[in-house]
């Protein structure tokens, strides 16, 4: 039950894009086509989930016992960046279709603040996500990371579908592109406010 609440909160209520403003650049950028939005969603799910697990284990097993949590940011970003780079090389080497569907999105995600944001939120700021005094477990962290990823994928896919539709309509020159996308995101964010009432 608790896990369901965590997942629901992560997907809808604290939606990573619309509420927490993580990962906005690719959200606005790679959302002009549904297919690329879908790939982006998958890539983000893969990277966020694995990075968060890695970060949580590093934090719990290395940083906290040695009392060097102030190195969290450096260690996390270094490990995540290297990890993503490795995965990208690996995919590129062994599967061309997978590379074009997923791999090319990976470097973009290295510097996506959602990845580091979720890693930091679930460890250093764990009490903010899971409540003060909660004993945070790996399974909670994984569920949260998955929820965040699903929330990201959901929103970017919906957003790309809207943007594809919008292409058919004339928009004033100065509103084309980013401005109208921002207004659309505004309306979506308002819609997602509704989920706040549920938990």
């Amino acid at each position, binding site marked *: 039950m608790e896990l369901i609440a965590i997942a629901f909160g992560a997907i809808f209520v604290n939606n990573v894009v619309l509420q927490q403003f993580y990962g906005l650049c690719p959200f606005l950028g790679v959302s002009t086509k549904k297919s690329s939005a879908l790939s982006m969603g998958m890539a983000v799910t893969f990277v966020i989930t694995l990075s968060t697990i890695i970060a949580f284990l590093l934090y719990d097993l290395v940083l906290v016992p040695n009392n060097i949590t102030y190195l969290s940011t450096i260690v996390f970003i270094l490990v995540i960046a*290297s990890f993503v780079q490795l995965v990208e090389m690996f995919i590129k080497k062994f599967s061309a279709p997978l590379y074009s569907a997923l791999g*090319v999105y990976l470097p973009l995600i290295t510097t996506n603040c959602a990845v580091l944001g979720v890693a930091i939120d679930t460890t250093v700021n764990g009490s903010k996500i899971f409540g003060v005094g909660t004993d945070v477990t790996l399974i909670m962290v994984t569920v949260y990371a998955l929820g965040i990823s699903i929330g990201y994928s959901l929103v970017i896919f919906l957003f790309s579908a809207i943007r594809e539709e919008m292409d058919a309509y004339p928009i004033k020159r100065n509103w084309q592109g980013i401005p109208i996308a921002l207004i659309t995101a505004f309306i979506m964010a308002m819609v997602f406010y509704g989920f706040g009432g549920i938990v």
Partner: protein
Amino acid sequence: MDGIVIVIILALVVSIGLALLLSFASVALHVEEDPRLQDVTDLLPNQNCGLCGNPGCKAMAQSILDEDSRLSQCKPGDQEMRELIKEYLEEHPDESGEYVKVKM
């Protein structure tokens, strides 16, 4: 003095480990590709912001080589960048001698 020892050990373990991993991976997992791809990528801002609609700068470079994207789609890139890429591509044909038609 314990603190700094731990920090140094950790820094060394992590960095040596990752560096070895990455450097060997770059050899073991090396893939032959159009040399112009890396060059164009390097000319792009490499901010990997995705605002051009392509997933990252490398993908944008590929897209430019494929004549799918316009240089102006790159939001962080300035006029200077666009000119540099155009110049580069005008000077570098592919293996069969064909030139990329650059869309500004």
